């Protein structure tokens, strides 16, 4: 195994200056004749943590799959760090740390072997590889399970293994599908601190169907339902509106969703 990686595959240090992290423009996606995502547009800039909120089946995962290059949009355009997901999927994947829906992992692999695989396949080698693996193991608190097989790990550990594998190469654009799924409340709080510690220069987009988590972790919220983007609002703004109406943030978001449902 060569000890040095070719320069193009080393860890991306960041995004080109001025480029939006994630740019979604008028994106639509059909599954057969079913409309899963309907004309959605938004951006996630470097330094931003954006929470993607919606009930199961709202189109969250489909959108994240399109950003990850797994699915092509039926219409519209998605760019990650100014690379088009359809035309330059490899360039996009190099910038991206992606946790897919359901956090599917190679069950029979040992945790240490899996993380090393995830790092090497992104081109990490030598001392840099060791440093990044150490970082991933420490920051996701995986030291105890390193010698275990993944199927022997608890749900909370598995979730952190998935997140560690998604972030081991220090990607400038992070897309996590339900990263808090299976975490207990204490772990959710720890995850919040962890993600907020990462934000410097990175564009972070994560999905959840738990409103309180999204409000706690992100500074901007995208609300999606039946494939349509209902709101793209700063959390502060929601809190201000909630304060004015004498309600809590949950009620305000619920109001947005029901208003859209009635429209």
């Amino acid at each position, binding site marked *: 195994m060569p000890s040095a990686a070719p320069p193009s595959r080393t860890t991306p240090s960041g995004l080109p200056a001025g480029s939006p992290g994630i740019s979604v423009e008028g994106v639509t996606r059909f599954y057969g004749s079913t409309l899963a995502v309907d004309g959605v547009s938004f951006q996630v800039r470097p330094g931003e943590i954006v929470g993607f909120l919606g009930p199961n089946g709202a189109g969250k995962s489909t959108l994240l799959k399109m950003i990850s290059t*797994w699915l092509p949009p039926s219409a519209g355009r998605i760019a990650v760090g100014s690379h088009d997901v359809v035309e330059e*999927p490899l360039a996009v994947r190099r910038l991206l740390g992606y946790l*897919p829906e359901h956090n599917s992992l*190679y069950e029979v692999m040992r945790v240490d072997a899996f993380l090393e*695989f995830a790092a090497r396949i*992104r*081109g990490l080698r030598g001392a840099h590889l060791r440093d990044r693996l150490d970082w991933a193991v420490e920051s996701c608190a995986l030291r105890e399970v390193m010698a275990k097989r993944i199927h022997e790990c608890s749900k909370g550990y598995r979730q952190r293994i998935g997140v560690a*594998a998604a972030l081991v190469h220090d990607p400038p654009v992070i897309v996590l599908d339900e990263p808090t799924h299976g975490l207990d409340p204490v772990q959710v709080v720890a995850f919040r601190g962890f993600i907020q510690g990462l934000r410097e220069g990175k564009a972070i987009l994560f999905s959840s169907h738990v409103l309180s988590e999204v409000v706690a972790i992100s500074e901007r919220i995208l609300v999606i339902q039946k494939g349509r983007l209902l709101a793209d609002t700063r959390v502060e703004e929601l809190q201000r509106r909630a304060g004015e109406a004498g309600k809590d943030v949950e009620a305000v978001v619920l109001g947005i969703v029901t208003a859209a449902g009635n429209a």
Partner: protein
Amino acid sequence: MTRKDALGGGEALAAARLIARREIAAYFDSNIAYVYTVGFVVLANSIFMNDFFLTGTADMTAFFDRLPLLLAIFLPAVTMRLWAEEKKHRTIELLLTFPIGPREAVAGKYAAALLLYALFLAGSLPIVVMLFVLGRPDGGLIASGYAGALLLGAQFIASGMFFSALARDQIVAFVTSSLAAFALVLSGNDRVVEVLDGLWPSVAPGTILDESVSAMPHFDAFVRGSIQLPSLVYFGGTSAVFLWMTALVLRQDRT
């Protein structure tokens, strides 16, 4: 629209090698490698020894003659998991959103299955040693037989990977790739050719299949010690087509 999802040479090789290593580890971690190798070696060697005691000649033709049907069962069992398992456990989305193309993933998995098959074949080497101890076999003939066996296996593994990529279930992948392998073998069987020709004598479909599709005329040439360019092209070409179609399926079949 151009789709830039092919890595450069060095990177592609490194990625394919990583994937191959992971797959080989998976074969051993799940004990598939041990069980299949022991099963294959015991079956293949005991079938040969039976023939050997009957004929008493120091050559391996009997071993290679029995090999295709055995491979038509064992190799689909090796390849069935390669993509069907990734799809079932949804790890395929993780794998193919790493910065690699489907080509590297296909190449890595193909190499892993080929290596496991080479291990199967290596299990028959004691026969070679025994023949050299007991008599004076034709070494060139044996080497040519092994070359044919490797190429036939390479073809079955490539087609098995294709059917595994089409399936979501390993059993379906096993049955379809085994049927395909049997079709490649039996279409070259004299009796099958005769029966098919008899169905439509003016066209002789059996002969057409035997001469165009079947792997057997090419494999038999190797076993008889004749290595011909058309046979190399046949095995190389069909394997490449199956691998290419596998990558095609992986690009299209996404949910």
